């Protein structure tokens, strides 16, 4: 089913399911997460948008190695330095993040992983708007409530630079993203905060395709073909410096 999105005053057709998940994504960004409050999550989002103007990040990005430039970020001043460092690197130079850098952050790993989740969703939303020709959405008002503050019991450091939760280690009562979205490494990446896996992939399957649709070459699920989608995906990934 198609809905409409106004771009330059004119309506463009957009899948209702994508519109729905965009609205859900904004609400989730504004609400309490697992480790950060709604207000903090929106501050993370605001800092992420601000990071594109950071002079330290620009010097680091232009350098042969980002680790040759020390200094202070041009930050909004509302988050601790470690959180700012994480946000700015993820936004401006994620392709050169290293295990050593991740481990050096003076930030709980759970909070770092939730930052990744927030930034991934924000990037999806903001990039879609930018590509369509829409201005950035104004960040919504924060919703009240306390973070859940529950770490998965089955988290282990046996796959990535951060702890992750294998499908077989998801505990009773914990959010389980795997039955719905799949259990590839990309799904496990931020599973230390499993709600963030759900948050991101609920949106991503509408931006891209669901896991079972990706290899169903007998059916076209979008107004562009599988081949066209993968051409775009490959080039986007290459320009983003991602070789996963």
């Amino acid at each position: 089913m198609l809905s409409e999105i106004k771009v330059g005053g004119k309506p463009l057709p957009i899948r209702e399911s994508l519109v729905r998940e965009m609205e859900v994504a904004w609400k989730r960004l504004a609400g309490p997460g697992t480790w950060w409050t709604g207000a903090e999550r929106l501050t993370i989002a605001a800092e992420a948008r601000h990071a594109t103007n950071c002079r330290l990040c620009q010097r680091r990005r232009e350098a042969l190695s980002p680790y040759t430039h020390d200094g202070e970020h041009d930050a909004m001043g509302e988050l601790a330095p470690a959180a700012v460092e994480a946000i700015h690197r993820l936004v401006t130079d994620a392709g050169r993040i290293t295990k050593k850098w991740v481990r050096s952050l003076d930030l709980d790993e759970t909070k770092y992983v939730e930052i990744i989740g927030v930034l991934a969703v924000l990037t999806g939303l903001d990039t879609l708007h930018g590509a369509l020709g829409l201005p950035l959405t104004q960040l919504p008002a924060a919703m009240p409530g306390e973070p859940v503050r529950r770490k998965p019991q089955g988290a282990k450091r046996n796959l990535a630079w951060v702890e992750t939760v294998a499908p077989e280690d998801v505990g009773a009562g914990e959010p389980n993203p795997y039955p719905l979205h799949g259990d590839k490494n990309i799904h496990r990446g931020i599973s230390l905060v499993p709600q963030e896996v759900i948050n991101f992939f609920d949106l991503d399957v509408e931006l891209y395709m669901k896991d079972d649709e990706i290899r169903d070459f007998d059916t076209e699920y979008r107004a562009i073909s599988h081949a066209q989608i993968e051409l775009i995906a490959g080039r986007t990934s290459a320009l983003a410096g991602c070789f996963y």
Partner: protein
Amino acid sequence: MSDQGLVDSIPNGKVLMDLVEAVFANADLAEARQAVRDDLGDAAFVDACGTIASFSAVVKIADGTGIPLEDYKEEVSREIRQELSINEFVT
């Protein structure tokens, strides 16, 4: 098959690539957007933008967490990774 060969082999490949390049260059996107809308239609344009958004976003997870390639991806990409010496860049 060369990059250009691949683009040429897919219908409307060039206008889709031009859109991706323009998004990443933060360039004037008007021309690139209109070309996709003219050649493929508005619904296709929206879905193309969605795909760009998806892959711009998912890279944050891969890069931020350091997840490895799955075995099946490692196998199919072994030759090209050797040709490009990607494995030399260990993090």
